[in-house]
């Protein structure tokens, strides 16, 4: 079902995404993004050993903020801007969730603003961000 602009209310929550990317998924992300930092897939890499495990690419979490918005809006809208801050690490093989809340709606511009985030298993926000959607 296609999301309609008229049906959106400030405070609406986007359906959550849950992800548990292991090394195989992070290798796929490395190939897709072009970021081959071994910190994300090589268990013997010194920095991964120091941290205790490989960590999820921050940019993969950023892309997941885009995904939670895209999955919600379908293609009734396009993302006109998206941003995030990298606040905390997520380890490979651990679950994180991705969500968002509509914070404002501009009837004349047909845009909505959304606060988006990833949270680790303890509920700590590791990647807060914002997105603006422009409806067609």
């Amino acid at each position, binding site marked *: 079902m296609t999301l309609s602009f008229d049906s959106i209310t400030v405070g609406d929550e986007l359906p959550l995404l849950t992800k548990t990317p292991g090394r195989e998924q992070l290798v796929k992300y490395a190939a897709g993004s072009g970021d081959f930092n071994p910190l994300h897939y090589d268990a013997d890499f010194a920095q991964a050993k120091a941290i205790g495990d490989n960590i999820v690419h921050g940019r993969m979490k950023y892309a997941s903020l885009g995904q939670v918005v895209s999955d919600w809006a*379908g293609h009734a809208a396009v993302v006109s801007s998206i941003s995030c801050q990298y606040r905390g690490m997520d380890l490979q093989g651990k679950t994180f969730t991705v969500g968002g809340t509509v914070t404002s709606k501009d009837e004349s511009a047909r845009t909505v603003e959304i606060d988006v985030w990833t949270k680790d298993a303890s509920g700590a926000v590791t990647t807060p961000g914002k997105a603006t959607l422009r409806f067609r």
Partner: protein
Amino acid sequence: MAFELTDEMRAVIGVEGKPWPVEFTSTGIRGFARGVGYTDPVYYDVAAAQAAGYANLPAPPTYSGIPVFIPGQNDDRYGAPLATDQPHLRHGLKNVLDGGTEHHYVRIPVAGETLFSTGKVANLEVKESRALGTMLVITSESTFRDAAGEVVFTTRGQGIFY
């Protein structure tokens, strides 16, 4: 540690490098969508993309394409173009954290397009942090233009050096 911005550092602000071609291909978009974990067919199936109103597979949000890679002219690990003559910022700080990223779209790129990115240092700021001490926050900006020279999207990123 004592760290101060010098005139030499400030001189790089706003100086753009040469444009570098960045490809958006159907294979590249599928690979990125797969890496992120999308199941939406619009990012995989051209017929689904066209039914959704795109000329070809659209770039998923945050996907910036793949810079054309030529050995010796790109960073071997990250693929970023090095041979753009963008002035190098010499600050001597050894550690780095990725602070944040943003994308601002005029329109969504689709598979089959080659855009041209130009990069620059947009801002330099010295901050104090309880955890890291004195930090240099470098804001980098890239502008992606199409073959006609029209801006398609811009990105900004904050690198935190300490």
